[in-house]
């Protein structure tokens, strides 16, 4: 009985937020550009256009992927489009939430940290590099931290990446079992 009551509210709410999400006018494409300091310790981004607040308050929108709404060709090729689309959203859940709600990928800012600041982890640059990597985004008077660590066994990070994406990860290298 309780389940029925929840469903009675859940489905109309989902429908409502889906419809509201589609009412959104198309956002003009942003043309962001980065300026990186010669020593690679800081980078500034400009030209980003903020997402409207009422989109950020829509929980259905949190689950979607505004940057790549259509599945790439390698996502379940040959299968019905709806299945490919759903599996794409499941593969990257909370994309908009991580980028634009908790994240600051629609804001202009300066990020300062370990050189080169435009790499999330050391293995993005060189598979043999290990150790700590930190950075801080300075945006509208707030300081948003990021910390990453990598050695021969694990790789993990948490916080706001240099791109503005908020996320966390914990992987055991060369293991089938992964936590996040």
């Amino acid at each position, binding site marked *: 009985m309780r389940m029925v009551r929840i469903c009675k509210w859940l489905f109309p709410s989902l429908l409502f937020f889906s419809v509201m999400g*589609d009412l959104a006018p198309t956002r003009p494409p942003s043309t962001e550009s980065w300026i990186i300091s010669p020593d690679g310790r800081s980078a500034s981004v400009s030209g980003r256009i903020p997402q409207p607040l009422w989109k950020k308050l829509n929980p259905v929108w949190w689950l979607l992927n505004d940057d790549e709404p259509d599945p790439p060709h390698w996502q379940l090729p040959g299968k019905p489009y*709806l299945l490919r689309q759903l599996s794409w959203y499941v593969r990257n859940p909370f994309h908009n939430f991580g980028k634009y709600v908790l994240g600051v990928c629609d804001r202009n800012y300066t990020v300062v940290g370990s050189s080169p600041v435009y790499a999330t982890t050391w293995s993005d640059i060189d598979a043999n590099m290990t150790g700590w990597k930190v950075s801080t985004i300075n945006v509208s008077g707030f300081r948003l931290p990021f910390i990453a660590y990598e050695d021969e066994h694990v790789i993990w990070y948490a916080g706001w990446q240099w791109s503005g994406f908020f996320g966390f990860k914990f992987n055991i290298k060369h293991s089938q079992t992964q936590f996040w």
Partner: protein
Amino acid sequence: MRLTIGVVAVLFLWLAYTAWPFVVVYRLASAVQARDVATVSQKIDFDALRASLTTQIVATYLRLTGKTGQPGSILEQFATGVAASVADPLVAKLISPGALLELLQNGTAPGVFSNNVPPVQGLSSEALGGIWRAYVNSEFGIARFFILVPVDKPASDSFRLQFCLTGWTWKLCGVELPQQLQVRLAQEIIKAEQR
């Protein structure tokens, strides 16, 4: 009673949602046939269409010239970036409403092809066939709709039109060109490079 009303309402909404993009497709086909540039322009998302055409032409150009690296490699990304800039003048010519109208109708476009190329059957009311044929050749996604035209040709010889639902309007946001047309357009880039 309430359950019945609920089921009927859901069925009605589903039918309306299913029929909606077909109305847009038939209107677009009529506008293309009537060469009604204003109506065609209203039904196209030009930024998205430009991206769709660029992706296909660049991929075919790289395949024909063999300038591809390992999938996902930096070399491949670099080659794609260079090819996109090379393809840009050609795509810019295709993206005007008049040129798109020609492209959708018969696979040609003024000022794009250096030689006379045989026309390809594209979008028209006849090419869509009846409602059932059109439905069989269509596919739905969340806020996405795809249809193959002409309906009586194999997929490789058809235009696959993609419509996106934005702001309560279905708009043409992608066109997957017939393979022979992709090759012709890529060959035009190669010719332009050799000049």
